[in-house]
């Protein structure tokens, strides 16, 4: 665990769910833990824990240098897990997309909101895409009820977040109008393939897996909304340092095992 730092990485969309052929964002998430073999736990709550979503997480992460696990709140009956202990022992918690309203309702019902705040305080990296990004802010723009509408998040990060800014264009006008009228606090609109990294509550980096994708700082004042483009850093195929030889070998073993 990285002592003293509280980090959140929110994707407008991307990672294994959206770009399975492009692992750079998922590898960037793994690099945030600051340890050679981070423990990463996937929470697929927002999509109702479907098996195929969980399988895709493992397909993406089982071959990476990490200890992947997932926590299915809908399947706890069959697979009992000490939820708080498991989450608090991670280096990274990766929250999948889906219904933001359901995600927060289920977390509250199972007291996961409290546990996740504790994880953040202890320096566990909180990451996610779509609903799994907006959940960390005060407000998100969700399609949980069909049409885009604002919904409350956990509020670890001040302000708002609107995901799939380019990919699902119906969200943007609702967001801009909400910020303009003050119904939604100012925040960030984020394209698919772009992620925001927060150190504490301060935006530290904006990164992307694709050319031409952006994030926007959205700000409302006196009934006027302004959208300021943020230019992301393009992540290279092998982010961070080159893997040492033994790590490369271990990856090869993982790969062989995965292919059976």
């Amino acid at each position, binding site marked *: 665990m990285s002592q003293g730092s509280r980090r959140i990485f929110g994707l407008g969309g991307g990672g294994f769910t959206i770009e399975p052929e492009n692992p750079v964002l998922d590898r960037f998430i793994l690099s945030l833990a600051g340890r050679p073999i981070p423990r990463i736990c996937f929470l697929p709550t927002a999509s109702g824990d*479907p098996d195929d979503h969980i399988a895709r997480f493992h397909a993406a992460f089982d071959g990476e240098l990490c200890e992947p696990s997932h926590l299915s709140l809908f399947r706890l*009956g069959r697979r009992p897990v000490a939820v708080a202990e498991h989450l608090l022992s991670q280096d990274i918690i990766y929250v999948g997309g889906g*219904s933001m309203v359901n995600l927060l309702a*289920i977390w509250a*019902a199972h007291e996961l909101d409290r546990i996740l705040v504790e994880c953040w305080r202890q320096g566990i990296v909180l990451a996610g895409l779509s609903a799994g990004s907006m959940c960390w802010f005060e407000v998100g723009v969700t*399609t949980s009820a069909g049409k885009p509408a604002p919904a409350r998040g956990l509020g670890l990060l001040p302000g708002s977040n609107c995901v799939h800014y380019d990919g699902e264009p119906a969200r943007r006008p609702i967001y801009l109008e909400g910020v303009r009228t003050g119904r939604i606090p100012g925040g960030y609109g984020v394209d698919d393939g772009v992620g925001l990294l927060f150190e504490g509550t301060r935006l530290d980096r904006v990164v992307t897996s694709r050319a031409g994708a952006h994030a926007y700082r959205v700000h409302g004042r006196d009934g006027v909304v302004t959208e300021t483009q943020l230019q992301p850093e393009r992540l290279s195929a092998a982010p961070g340092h080159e893997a040492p030889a033994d790590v490369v070998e271990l990856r090869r073993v993982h790969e062989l095992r995965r292919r059976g």
Partner: protein
Amino acid sequence: MTAARLPQIVAFGGGGFSREKGNRLLDDYVLEQTAVSRPRVCFLPSASGDADHYIVRFYRTFDAARCEPTHVSLFRRDDGASGDLRTHLLSQDLIYVGGGNVISLLGVWRAHGLDEILRECWQAGVVLCGLSAGSLCWFAQGVTAFVGEPRVVDGLGFLPWSNAVHYDGERGRREQYHGFLRAGGLRPGYACDDGAALHFVGHDLERAVSSRRGARAYRVEIAADEVTETPLRTRHLARMAAMAA
């Protein structure tokens, strides 16, 4: 639809298409309670996280030959029955709630305002039924052991009793239920085996029925720290069907 329909709930301890492959007795029973020849039936699989395989099994059992089936997915509101949730649910003859995690179920329902909508449906005489989590949810309190340690959850409270399900099917359920009653804070209620169901009209138990021989339901009460469990006369549906024929 008849003009004045009474509020009805059929709460299964377990059973129906979810858990009794090839045994249609409980599912046929709830269809009959609608008193409509081709009832409109809506499945709510929220407690399972709207699992696809569960939705498919619902449509296989409640096929279009015998009813008008739909489902509502709260994880994918653009999927399944479209349009206004309240209008759709109020237009049903039967709402069938699947099993799964009752804590998640209630959390999601409240977030989408389904607690209020389902109360309206119940009062309007839409028959409500379900198994397991889909049984516990209708009561004031339910005992669940789905997530780790057994605990008491507050349901929607349409029925002012407590409820325990899988009473014979899952180890320790009876002891847990009695334990919570003795500890105080749990109101008296009804326990139900897999394959047994409680049929309430208003708040009152109309009858207990079963899809298998030996499946039972119980009235469970506490007086002076003493738990009393009274087996209810449970009618086996196959025999009822044979007698009616």
